[in-house]
Each structure stands twice: as C-alpha cells, then as structure tokens.
C-alpha cells in the first residue's frame, strides 16, 4: 500500500533522509522510531508530497505521490502530532468539513456522532467549539476524521505525544481496529511502549537513515528499549 524505494531528501548540503526503502502492506502498522531530526517527519512529508523529493520514489497503492499528488492524498489520512482544528467551529463541524473535503459522500449528523463516540470523544463535546478542547480530544477528532474519510492508509506523526496514558490506550485501540480492517499505517513516534503495543513492524531511524528494521512480535519491551538506546549511542 505504502512503498518507498530509495527515497531521499536533502536541504542544500544537509541530508535529511538517506535513500530509504520500506513497504507498509494493508493491515500492517509500521512504526518509525528515532530521535528528533532522524528523518521520520521528512518521510511522512514525502509521502504527502508536501516537499519535493531529492531521489527515489514514494508510492501509495502503486501511484507515485509526486505524479499523482491529489489522487494519492485521497487514499491517505494524516494525523500530525498536534491535530489542528478550526477553533471557531465545533468538533462536529470540523469533522463534517474535513469529511466533505475528502470527496466522500456527506455523512449525516447521527453517523458523525457515532464516529465521535467510537473514538471516545466525551458525550456532548461534539457540539462544543474546539477552542475548549484538550489535546487528547483534538487527537480523537483527528482519528474520527481519518475513519470518516475511509482512508486506505494512515500517516501518523507522533500522534500520542502529550496524551495521557488512558487517551494513548484508547488511541491504540482505535488503531488496532483500523489495522484489522486492512488499513496500512505508518506511524512516526518516540513512544517505544506504544510502538511495541501497536506496531507490526518497527524501524529505527538515525541521522536520516533506517539503521534497523524488525517485526514487533520478534522483540520484547525491554529488548526494544535496549536496542533503541544502543542505536542512539552508536
């Protein structure tokens, strides 16, 4: 579903992403671990065609993102570290807006409220302005948007950063649901625990390069932490 082949990005002399090759298949959650500046967000930006790549290719469902920018974006849902919504609109109005912009048939109020319920948005919050929302609530609206769009692939950039443990746990549950429905998920995160819990594959990035890649089931929580720290120290 998501495929990078020799994908690279440089800003002048600075290499942000060394040639990267990865595949995220339907029903797979690929977690990118790494420190700030490792190249995780750059990878996501290149899949979104927000920046021109320097080399290689990135495809979504076999379509090159640079050549089919709008088509590939319609197959994707993106949840950034901070889900930014329109503060003067309610959660439901935001959800309606983003859902309708994605080109899907408009969903009714009841359907959208059910979605809010599914992602754990407190009762009554959907009709309140987003300016009153906590970060966790905004993230939940972000997930609701992704579900409403019926995207075939999800790009998540530090989605659990700043969430309390309960909200993180609820978030993981929703991701598992989506994975089981065959959605391909690429998630950049610092959260080793969440990567192990949610991911099916894990890649460790450092200085713009993928330094390690393995199946999440092949490693325990403690081993993952030690492996990660070893890579960071080297």
């Amino acid at each position, binding site marked *: 579903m998501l495929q990078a082949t020799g994908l690279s990005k440089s800003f002048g002399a600075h290499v942000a992403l060394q040639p990267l090759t990865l595949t995220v298949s339907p029903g797979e959650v690929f977690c990118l671990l790494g420190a700030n500046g490792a190249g995780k967000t750059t990878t996501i930006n290149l899949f*979104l065609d*927000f*920046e021109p790549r320097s080399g290689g290719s990135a495809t979504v469902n076999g379509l090159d993102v640079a050549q089919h*920018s*709008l*088509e*590939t*974006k*319609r197959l*994707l*849902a*993106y949840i*950034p570290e*901070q*889900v*930014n*919504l*329109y*503060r*003067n*609109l309610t959660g439901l*109005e935001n959800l309606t*807006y*983003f859902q*309708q*912009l*994605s*080109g899907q048939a408009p969903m009714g109020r009841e359907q959208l409220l059910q979605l809010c319920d599914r992602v754990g948005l407190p009762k009554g919050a959907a009709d309140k302005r987003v300016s009153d929302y906590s970060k966790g609530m905004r993230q939940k609206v972000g997930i609701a948007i992704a579900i409403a*769009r019926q995207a075939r692939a999800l*790009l998540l950039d530090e989605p659990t950063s700043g969430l309390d443990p309960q909200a993180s746990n609820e978030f993981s549950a929703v991701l598992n649901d989506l994975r089981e429905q065959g959605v391909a998920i690429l998630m950049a995160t610092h959260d080793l625990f969440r990567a192990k819990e949610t991911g099916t594959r894990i890649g460790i990035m450092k200085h713009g390069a993928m330094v390690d890649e393995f199946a999440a089931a092949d490693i325990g929580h403690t081993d993952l932490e030690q492996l990660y720290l070893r890579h960071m120290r080297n």
Partner: protein
Amino acid sequence: MLTTIVRKEFTETMRDGRVRTAAIALLLLLGGSLLYGARQTRLLAAERDTARQLTRAHWVTQPPKGPHSAAHYGIYAFKPRATLATLDDGVDPYVGVTTWLEAHKQNEFQFRPAQDATSAQRFGALTAATTLQLLVPLLIVLLGFSAFAGEREQGTLRQVLSLGVKPTTLGTGKALGIAAGLGVVLVPATVLGVVAMTGLDRTTTDMSRVALLIVCYLAYYIAWLGLTLTISAFAKTGRVALAGSLGVWMLVSVLAPRFMTDVVRTMHPTPSAAVFAAAMKRDMDGGIDGHGGADEREKQFEQAVLQKYNVDLLSQLPVSFAGLSLEEGERHGNEVYDTHFAALWATFAKQERVRELAAVFSPVLAMRSLSMALAGTDVAQHLHFQQASEAYRRTLMSAMNGEITTKAKGKDFEYKADGALWSSVAPFTYEAPSVSWVVQRHVPALLLLGVWALGMMMMVVWSIRRMTP
C-alpha cells in the same frame, strides 16, 4: 466541495468577534455617510432650485433699463447636484457650484463649501466614497490576511492539503467565503443607499452610471482580495501577512495619492489665481501676446464697420455702433478667455492623465478617479458645466448687445429695454454629459482597474499553486 469551503469560511468569519465588530463599525460609518450624503443632496438640490427660480425671477422682473446695464446685472448659474454626488462629492467642495454670468467677464465659481468648512474638516470629510475606497479594503485585509498564513501557522492548512484538495479550489472557496462576509456589510449598505436616495432627483443621474460604478467597485474589491490572498499565501504567519497587507494598504491608499499629487503638480504646474488673472488682464488690455492694444483694435473695428455698411461716418450707420462695439468687446474678451482657459484646461487634462496612469502603482487612484467621474463631480464635468454656463453667458450678452445694435440707433446707452427682452432670453438649463462621454475621458483608469483585478486574480492562482503547507 467548493460550497463546503465557502460555508466554512463564512461561518468562521461570522463567529470571529473582531471581524463582527469591524463589520458593524464599517456598516455604521457607511450607513451614516450615505444618509448624511443623501440629506445634503436633498438640501442642496432644494436650495439650488429655490435660488435658480429666484435669480430667474429677478432677471425677468427687472425694471426698464439699458440692455448693457442688464448685462452687468447678470444672472447666476447653478450646477445641479447629481444624485450620485451623495456617494462622492469629488472636487465640488473645492471648485464651487455657482457662477455669476455678467458682461465682459468669465467669472470664477463661487460658494465653495470648503471655504465654509471648519478647521476639523482639514483632516478630510468622511464620505461614502472614502469609506468604500479606503475602509472597505481594510475590512478585506482583516477578513483575508489569515486565509492561508493563519491556517499555515495553526497547522490546519497542512491538514486540508493532506486531504487532496486542489489548492485552486481551496483559494476560490476562501475568496468566495470572504466575499460573502463582505456582502454582510455591502449588501445592507447598498439597500440603505437605495433607500437613502429614494426621492432624490433621478433625472440628474443616468442609471448606467450607477451600474458602471458598481462594476468598478467589484473590480476594485477583487483586486484587494487578490492582493490580500497573495500576501497570505506567501507569508509564514498571520502576523506577517497582516503587517504586509497593512503596509501595502498604507502605501497605495495613503502615500501614493499624496505623492502623486506632488508629482502631478511638479510635472504640469498650474498658475496661481493671481498670475492667471494678471495674464488675462494683460491680453485683454494689450491684445493676445501684445498684438493690438485697445485703441488700435477700436480703430480697426471702426474701419471694418464703415466698410461693411459702406458709409464714411459712424453717424451714418443704420444701427447703433455702441451695440456693435460692445459685441466686438465681448468677442475679443471671449478670445482672450478661450486662449487662457484652453491652456489651463489642457494642463488639468494632462494632470488627470498622469494621475490616472499612476494607477499602475495604486488601484486607489483609478477607483478615486472613476468614482468622481461617475458621480459627476470630477474636474472634466466641472469644466463641462463651466463651458455650458459660459455658452449661455455669451448667448445672453449677444442678445443684450443685439438689442442695442438694432434698437438703440441714436440713443445708444440711453436706450431702455423692458420685460419683453428679459423674458425673451430662455432660462439657463444644463444637461450632464452621458456615461459614454465620461468613459471616453477615463479609459486609462478603467483599463488599469481591470488590469489590477485580473492581475491580482492571476497572482492568487499563481501563488496558491506554489503554496507550501
């Protein structure tokens, strides 16, 4: 999708307290200036109507007297106030709207409202035109500065673009949403304007002028909207976009018109009133460019008259030489006035042309020029009225001199005419020029306003296609 974007933009705009406050303030200003302008138009039209009837009554009820005395008694001509002057006073407060038509002289216009203005009005009067040309663009800036820059700063632009929305669709939706917000101010203001102008004399205003004025304002606002959205598409943050847009507004709305006034004055200077009057007096006394003084002209004229009537002495003429001489004096005076005023008006035309071409740098200059022109209060239409009133003066003087020539043989200035002569002179009527006459004189401003609107639309499309989240 477009409707979704427009609806969302409009909803957000209407929920923004700052925008609501600014819109209400602008609506009050616009409404106030329209109502005040309409009241002034109604008042001035009534005053001028009364004065016109009074001056006509004074003319026709003159007691028996010499026609030349009647010519010196003269008559006032009043420029009718066009209905659209409610929106834009133009140059009327500075050039006056009344002139005294008398023998020998083409008088300056009198009763300039600016002369009666209080010192506070040196800061500029608030008219509907000022609000429409300067303050509505400020509202557009307020509505549009954050369209892209604000969303970029908040991170929502990134999310919207990640949905696969075409940037041009997003831009069009935003532009229409902002336009809808602007409509909340302009539509009630237009209704108010129509209501305020109800009952005013429509005969002075061609409806095609109204239609063209609306088209011009639409183009003007499209240019401002395009400018604001272009800046917003490039700016990193909302604050930068706001500062940039306000800077451009200050430059093109406040500084450029003042700067151009100085440039125009330097490029095409006009003489002071005193110098102008002295030059005319010199030519009046000594002939144009010193060719032929009064005595020399008198002698030449006498010879020409004697030759024409085939007599040797003035006393043998079948008509009054005094009448002929007065008419000749008028002819010479007219020649001098025409020469000097033609030069002055040519300078005014050059100044106007430079001012309109300067609209390359500022759409405000084009809009200001077109607003005055379509309201009937620009320099060209002032001169049109001046020419019409001068033509009437010449007809009046010819009628008086003709009466002396044909009926005062042997009596000359002792001859007395009665009411029959005064009534035989038709009252002064004035018809404002057609819209096509106005358009012909403002082609550069119209074209440049169109270029601004089209250019800014193209700039928006170009900038949002290159926009980064």
